[in-house]
């Protein structure tokens, strides 16, 4: 196969942009979006909308503080924008699972159908792989952005004076969430290089986290020094991150490092695979 060529930014942008078209302008993408919107309407209406009242209740606050404190979430209770505290927790744990599903068909469907053969005559394999990854990340970014704006609207509806502070909080949450979700998208980019269908990609991702987690857990139990293997799993830092107990540098470096490794492995496999 061909020797590595310089990345053409124009082609990369076209490939990434086409993923947005695929999500927002195709019937299948719009159905997925509608389902996503419905789920988030329920989340915004109940957990976020109503939990604010519960968290803000003076009677409940101490109990909540005790419970939250025991699992390291007490800092969240200090946020004046309680909606964002609830959003933060729901988004942090739900989007990674969601991203495994919506990013499950980055290259595998096109490879099985032969569509990648048309693409590979016009762009390098790296551009295809990385462009699709960026495209899926852009889709995820849009969805996180939309839900954050909706949460901001709920906050503004309850207490307009919190809007200015809420905006700053929304921006920081947005950036950290996107970086946190990046390795999940990269993991699906990697699995797509050898899986034979998007469904199998999802199954393999679930197996990676479950069976992989058990194996690594057993290894660590035998040899504690192997705890470094935890970093094989995207989201390893989420538990600490949820309670705002992780330094910002680690919150950014861990997922970005994982993403770089996953994409490098994916590219190595993809460049050598038959189309």
């Amino acid at each position, binding site marked *: 196969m061909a020797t590595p060529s310089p990345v053409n930014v124009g082609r990369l942008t076209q490939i990434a942009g086409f993923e947005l078209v695929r999500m927002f302008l*195709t019937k299948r993408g719009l159905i997925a979006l509608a389902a996503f919107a419905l789920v988030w309407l329920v989340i915004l209406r109940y957990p976020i909308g109503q939990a604010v009242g519960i968290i803000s209740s003076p009677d409940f606050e101490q109990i909540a503080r005790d419970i939250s404190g025991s699992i390291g979430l007490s800092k969240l209770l200090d946020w004046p924008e309680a909606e964002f505290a609830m959003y933060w927790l729901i988004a942090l744990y739900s989007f990674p699972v969601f991203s495994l599903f919506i990013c499950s068909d980055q290259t595998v469907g096109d490879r099985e159908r032969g569509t990648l053969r*048309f693409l590979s005559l016009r762009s390098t394999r790296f551009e295809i792989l990385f462009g699709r990854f960026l495209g899926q990340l852009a889709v995820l970014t849009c969805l996180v952005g939309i839900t954050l704006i909706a949460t901001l609207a709920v906050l503004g509806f309850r207490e307009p004076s919190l809007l200015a502070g809420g905006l700053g909080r929304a921006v920081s949450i947005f950036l950290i969430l996107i970086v946190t979700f990046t390795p999940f998208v990269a993991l699906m980019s990697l699995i797509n290089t050898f899986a034979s269908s998007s469904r199998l990609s999802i199954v393999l991702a679930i197996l990676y986290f479950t069976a992989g987690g058990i194996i690594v857990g057993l290894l660590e139990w035998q040899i504690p020094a192997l705890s470094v293997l935890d970093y094989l799993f995207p989201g390893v830092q989420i538990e600490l991150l949820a309670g705002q107990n992780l330094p910002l540098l680690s919150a950014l470096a861990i997922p970005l490092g994982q993403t770089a490794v996953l994409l490098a492995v994916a590219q190595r496999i993809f460049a050598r695979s038959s189309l």
Partner: protein
Amino acid sequence: MKSLITGRNLSKSYGSKLALNNVNFEIQKGAPVALVGPNGAGKTTLFSLLCGYIAPSMGELEILGHKPGSAALFNKVSALPQDAQLDPRFNIDKQLSFYAKLQGMGTKQSQIEALRVLDLVGLSEVAKNRAGDLSHGMRKRVTIAQALIGSPQIVMLDEATAGLDPIHAREVRELVSELSSQATFILSSHDLTELERLCSQVLHLDKGILSEHQTKAANTDKHFYTLMLSEAYQNVEQQLQALDGVSRVYMSQHKEYVIEYQPTSDSLDIALLQFCHQHNWQYRQLVNGHTLENQIFKQEKL
């Protein structure tokens, strides 16, 4: 003249199966080149190597001086890979326009280009249809259209007319014939008559081994005629054998005879046709030389 494509000692194996065995060939700029052979002979493997979809197990392959799949070949080499499909969820004009953009065209130009190539294959009226809503034949023609985007120097079509009705297969042949002055086509097909009409160089693959044949003007074998009759007549071989200058006659297949003649025999073709007329034999075709089919399969019904 510098070769467009050069393959040297090219081999490809899948596990223990050798799909291509030490293949050597050169393709020059010019008339379409045919790649023929039975199923499993290695044609699609060779196409896949040429397109950079797979890597050779051994040997070297160069297209316009570059390795297959190289970015330097984008916009210069295009292909219709066998069985490859467009995304069924998108409008075909959107997909073709996307490919045109990848080839460096602007938004407006890419839309015009998508319609131009769809028009070439007679599908401009379904430009807004999704690929999944088209018939098998239409989908095939759209994939041919994608191979014509831009101005490629080399166009490789693997089984381009397979699955097309006779009218559209003919249109594709005419299209290839029209465009062959602008690009060098490499065609694979099981329809040898089709390839014989279009191509001058024939690469014949069988069990991974390559041999070359020539057709039409490049056919230097002037000592044979192939006569195809409309009906089966009695003692044709013996009667043709009696003609002056004929050294040998044999039936290559039903109602088809190969006539070997002395190089000094002038106007034997005229004599042959007169002979048919005198004996009231209806003939369908008189080929100057061997048919491609006979060259490849050397069928001699004795």
